[in-house]
């Protein structure tokens, strides 16, 4: 006793992948299908939506009726294990700055609960500096990534409609679902004031997928994609990528394994990953020919910064000093209310798919606006499953409207209150913008010199602030939402009392959970960590395939592009191995 030993796993792998979400899951799938031997390291436990079920549960199946906990901040049935905080794994923020960091600890990561919004970046999204002089262009363009988007559409599946829009490219879409009642009202109101509304683009199977990676079921319209789907009707990395990767017999998955460092040799090349097992708290090492990080933009940056050596004194792949920098999230702001025309509405099953059936892609010209970049609009409302919080604050609603012919005082109790609850059910409506922020060098995460987690791993300290660009964008969102709400005859009940004092309702950075930019790619090794194939400039057998490599993230949810880039990097790795360059 008293000895601390590092147990080296005996297998020499072709690839060691850290993280099993969209990026890591895709790399594991591609490499194992190519016959390579893969170690997949995941900080959380095994998870399979067909076995770990919260789907189709009723509110009373939860002791807290679906309320959130620190284990499940998006509600008791949400599939994500952990969220804003993890016991024993802190992170810190520099004074006067903000960053909220969502971490899912489970096979499949955050893809198990995400919104399935699957948007391709458009041609302009890769060349923003050339357009507005801000940030940087990507080292690749839409034409480089389009073939991968096409393949992902085919093997993973996405519904949508081909609209011929310049910067919201067409895809290989399954048919979208018809709009719900409130969505028809939104569409009428928005298009009436010149705001386009088109079918949403979600990775949910409305029809069987011919080239699916694994046996998958069709969507059965329970609207609960955030709970994970037991028939694999939606995309989660756990079911759609990791499961078929494991079925090749080429992948060893190491769960509850918290990566500590990337190990490098005297030539500065990566040789493997050291990790601490959460099961026995012992130290382990897994060796491989290449190391692929997909632990999330911030977690991958943390790993690199914690991997200092003689050859890499500033952290691995960080001679440029950009690792951790250019951290950015989508902007977000929201507004909601009620549609009086829906009071006392007829009941029917309108669950639909998990999320909106319609959305608004960015539609304006920034030359006529006081902020750069755009946002898309997401919508919700209608007759959803009641959950903890349902019926709260009836006193703020029931005095304002005539209920079944009767004007009542606000508040109340008894049979009259029950009548009110029924009357107002299903009349809510809301919308939120998701916009593009400008990635800035001085928005960053770094290693906190004073703090470690319970495994002794130094933690991240965040320094992130919004600029006036993002604040002006949020102001524009709110004005747009108010216009749509008024035009549809909705009564705004929240989200319309904003001003400069609260950045016009702009969510604090990190809250939209689209972290990106911390290990960015570029052609110049002095200003980027990776080349255009997600390969480290400083260490040729090290790759990063999560949101880290993003130069910018458009106003498009980043998962589809993480998948495309990871697929592309995986093929590059296979090719380079064949050529004996790796």
């Amino acid at each position, binding site marked *: 006793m008293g000895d601390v030993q590092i147990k080296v796993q005996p297998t020499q792998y072709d690839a060691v992948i850290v993280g099993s979400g969209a990026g890591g899951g895709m790399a594991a799938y591609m490499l194992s299908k190519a016959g390579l031997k893969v170690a997949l390291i995941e900080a959380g436990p095994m998870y399979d939506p067909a076995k770990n079920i919260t789907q189709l549960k009723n509110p009373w199946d939860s002791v807290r009726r679906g309320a959130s906990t620190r284990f499940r901040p998006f509600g008791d049935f949400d599939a994500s294990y952990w969220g804003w905080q993890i016991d024993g794994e802190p992170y810190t923020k520099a004074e006067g700055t903000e960053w909220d960091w969502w971490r899912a600890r489970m096979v499949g990561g955050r893809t198990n609960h995400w919104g399935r919004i699957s948007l391709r970046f458009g041609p302009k999204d890769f060349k923003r500096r050339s357009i507005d002089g801000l940030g940087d262009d990507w080292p690749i363009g839409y034409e480089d990534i389009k073939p991968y988007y096409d393949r992902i559409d085919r093997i993973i599946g996405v519904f949508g409609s081909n609209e011929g829009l310049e910067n919201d490219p067409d895809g290989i879409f399954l048919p979208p679902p018809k709009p719900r009642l409130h969505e028809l009202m939104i569409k009428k109101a928005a298009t009436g004031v010149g705001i386009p509304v088109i079918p949403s683009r979600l990775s949910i199977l409305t029809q*069987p997928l011919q080239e699916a990676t694994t046996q998958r079921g069709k969507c*059965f319209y329970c609207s609960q994609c955030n709970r994970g789907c037991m028939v694999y009707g939606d995309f989660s990395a756990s079911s759609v990528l990791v499961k078929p990767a494991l079925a090749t017999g080429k992948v060893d998955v190491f769960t509850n394994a918290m990566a500590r460092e990337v190990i490098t040799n005297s030539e500065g090349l990566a040789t493997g990953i050291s990790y601490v097992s959460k099961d026995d708290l012992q130290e382990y090492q897994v060796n491989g020919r290449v190391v692929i990080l997909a632990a999330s933009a911030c977690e991958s940056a943390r790993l690199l910064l914690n991997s200092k050596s003689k050859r890499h004194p500033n952290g691995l792949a960080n001679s440029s000093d950009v690792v951790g920098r250019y951290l950015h999230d989508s902007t977000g702001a929201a507004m909601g209310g009620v549609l009086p025309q829906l009071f006392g509405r007829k009941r029917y099953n309108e669950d*639909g798919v998990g999320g909106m059936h319609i959305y608004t892609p960015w539609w304006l010209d920034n030359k006529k606006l006081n902020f750069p970049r755009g946002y898309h609009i997401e919508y919700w409302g209608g007759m959803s499953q009641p959950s903890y919080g349902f019926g709260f604050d009836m006193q703020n609603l029931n005095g304002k409207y005539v209920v079944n012919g009767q004007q009542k005082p606000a508040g109340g109790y008894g049979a009259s209150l029950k009548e009110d609850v029924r009357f107002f059910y299903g009349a809510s409506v809301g919308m939120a913008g998701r916009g593009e922020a400008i990635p800035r060098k001085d928005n960053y995460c770094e290693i906190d010199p004073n703090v470690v987690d319970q495994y002794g791993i130094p933690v991240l300290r965040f320094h992130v602030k919004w600029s006036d660009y993002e604040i002006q964008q949020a102001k524009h969102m709110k004005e747009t939402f108010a216009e749509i709400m008024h035009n549809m005859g909705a009564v705004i009940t929240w989200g319309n009392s904003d001003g400069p004092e609260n950045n016009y309702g702009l969510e604090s950075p990190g809250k939209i959970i689209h972290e990106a930019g911390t290990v960015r790619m570029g052609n110049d090794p002095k200003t980027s960590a990776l080349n255009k194939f997600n390969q480290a400039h400083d260490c040729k057998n090290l790759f990063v395939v999560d949101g880290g490599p993003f130069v910018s993230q458009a106003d498009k949810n980043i998962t589809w592009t993480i998948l495309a880039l990871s697929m592309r990097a995986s093929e590059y790795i296979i090719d380079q191995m064949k050529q004996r360059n790796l």
Partner: protein
Amino acid sequence: MKRRDTLKAIALGTLSGTALLTAACNTNADDSKNSVPATGSGPDRMQEEAAHEAQLKAMPDFFTPHEMATITVLADIIIPKDDVSGSATDAKVPEFIGFIVKEMTYYQTPLRGGLKWLDNYALKQYQKAFIALTQQQQITIIDAIAYPEKAASNMQQGVSFFNLIRNLTVTAFYTSEMGVKDLGYVGNQPNEWKGVPADVLAQYQLAYSEQELKICI
């Protein structure tokens, strides 16, 4: 059809929506064997939260029997039995409130204090605890705190308390099996979405566009 087979059929896309609904409705007790976790069993829990829930369940009650009795009377005043559904106690609302304060500890002081405020007010008015009053006396007090915009300014603490107990009662009732049925929520089951029913579209003078009918499933 067994529930697991039903889901498998959905997975294979071989079952139509109407067949699904019928199948889902016709499950009987024998079918629960060897099926995917049936409705009514608890949701998936990760290790840490399972431990947390076990800890919660082992905790002693927060409320005294007198406090629970008062909560029960209040809950049934807020949600009584009517033509459509049963009462708060029928839906076990007091049990939920008794449980949730162990996890949402921020409710403990406002509820305990509010109950004490109520008893103290009852004592001043009628020289008895609230639960010992006649129904008429109880309602007289409730009427003084149940309508925020009409309540006297010296009753504001009572109004705040009643808003809170009304929130918890309403939410607990309408997230119970009885309450969900009362509300008429008919989702949370295998279905096929074919769009808004025609009579509803007509009611709101809306229609799907040709484009929607052409491209949508």
